[in-house]
């Protein structure tokens, strides 16, 4: 039907819409679906989704902008989120973030020039016992050092 939301995604969204008591409950799974496809959720996608779900685009945009797990701009192939909440901060989470940024010559929240890496400093990811840790796309990497983190990223980049 449209460029931004593929036909099978539309099918998924329609199913989600009847799965819950209220079709508004299907907004989050639908946004996840779009993000899985594009890596982020653009305002254009929000408008497309509004047509599919017959929900005002302002209502969907409110949801997208409320939750930090929805990316509001494009991210690199590897979306690296380094936790800097209490445990991780005490174990060098902030320094780790800076180290990775420096290594790939990229500012926080921006995409590296080769398009492979985006680094974000985030709040607690619920893995305090294995601090410091990072999340790359949807996978956790724990008990990190500067060196082991870069090693992991290098492996995933190739």
């Amino acid at each position, binding site marked *: 039907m449209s460029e931004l939301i593929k036909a099978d995604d539309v099918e998924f969204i329609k199913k989600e819409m009847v799965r819950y008591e209220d079709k508004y409950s299907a907004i989050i799974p639908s946004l996840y679906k779009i993000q899985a496809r594009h890596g982020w959720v653009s305002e254009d996608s929000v408008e497309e989704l509004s047509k599919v779900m017959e929900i005002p685009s*302002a209502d969907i945009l409110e949801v997208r*902008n409320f939750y930090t797990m929805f990316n509001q701009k494009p991210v690199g192939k590897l979306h690296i989120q380094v936790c800097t909440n209490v445990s991780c901060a005490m174990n060098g989470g902030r320094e780790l973030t800076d180290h990775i940024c420096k290594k790939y010559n990229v500012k926080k929240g921006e995409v590296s020039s080769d398009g492979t890496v985006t680094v974000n400093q985030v709040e607690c990811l619920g893995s305090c016992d294995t601090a410091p840790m990072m999340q790359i796309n949807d996978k956790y990497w724990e008990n990190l050092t500067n060196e082991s983190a870069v090693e992991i990223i290098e492996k995933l980049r190739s």
Partner: protein
Amino acid sequence: MLKCTINGKEVEVKEGTTIIEAYKEMQEDIAHYCWHPGLSIAGVCRLCVVEIEGNPRLQIACNTEVRDGMVISNVSDKVEEAVRWGLDFHLINHPLDCPICDQAGECGLQEQYMKYGQYDSSMAENKVKKRKVVDLGPKIVLDAERCILCSRCVRFTEEISKTNELGIFNRGDHSMIGTVKDKPLDNDYSVNTVDICPVGALTSKDFRFQQRVWYLENTATTCPGCSTGCSVSVYHNKEGAYRVKPREDKENNGYWMCDEGRNVYKFVNKEARLLSAKTLNSGKLSSVRLAQALEDFTSFNREGKKVGVLLTGQNTTEEYKAILEMFAGADFFHWKNNEEKFNDFDGLLKRGDKNPNTNGLIETISNLKDAKSFNASNYDLTVAVMPENFLVYEDYNEKLESLKASKNLLLFSAAKLPKMELKTENTWVFPLKTFVEKEGSYLNHAKTERRIQKATSIVTEAVALNEFAAAVSRGLKININHHESRKQNEFTNIPGQY
């Protein structure tokens, strides 16, 4: 002559010069409240303090004389610190009501505050900067920093206008009102969001900075913009009307009105109005006093004359009754602006019939003819009542033009008239009152009576049709009910009466 250094510049001054005088001579900035060149020295405000090299304590510039070789500064950190604290003391009991203070803009204390004031709040966290003066739509401006996120406007577009443009985006103290992709907030009811905004976040482009609201009175009346007849308040002062806002009326319009209706104040103000009566004088229309024009018309013998009357649905029922009685036996014509749209309705408030009293006219005058068949040359006397909201009459000029064929013309108009060349025998032009200047009633689309109330007098010479009829029938001896504050009007100034 003494040599000294002021703020790093060397100068020479006369013996006996005080430091503040030296500053003034050099046109260097120095704060001072109590010192004045024409008065004695008091030394009480303590804001002109300066640092003098070699002197451990700051001195006041107004009461210290320059000595040879002095090195003086009022821009050092020490001085700034002292001035900041001095200002703090001055402000302990000051109301800081600059926004409504008349001295604002030329106030020394305000200038000092701009330089040294405490801008940041006492909160440890910095204020979150948000968007200001956002052009939210053709009629509305948003200041997101003033917004308290009550969500009234968001719910209005969801529940009332059902247009869903607005949302609260982002989270926590970054939350902000806005539209998707900054699309303009532009619907037929958008200005209601300004009315319901409890703070200054949403303001109306049409009204902002026009008037301070405490200088305006408001009068409860009915919107003449269409046949719904919403209950509204007109806001006015002695210069004219400035805005129209909806007034709670559960049966008719709830709490709302349309954006188009908010324009109805625009044709009532002086700059759009016909200000005086006119009569035909050797082929030209010229202004005369109202009493003179009335006398002139009364002396015209109407006996046995064929009369055609042209009316629109924009006058009150009381006016129609008076005109029907006055010209009994005449042919009455109904001038309709957009008949094919008369029954249009947007489902909320707006109706296609842009006249408030079409039903009043139809009910009052039974054998109305369509104005399409009106021909001024068929009558000895043509009576034409022009619509006050002439903007909704596309054929306004055409109709005005067609009146030139009249043998004798009695013309009523609230609006300023274009230059007219007339070949009529007689023409009398009377300025007409608009809905803010008279009382009366409309019969709306549902045939419910809607009252209008007099808010103010804008054109003192203007008459309502019923006042005109009464004045003519009683031979001018009528006291027309003008606004109380405007007792001096034409009707107490009739020649021969004192």
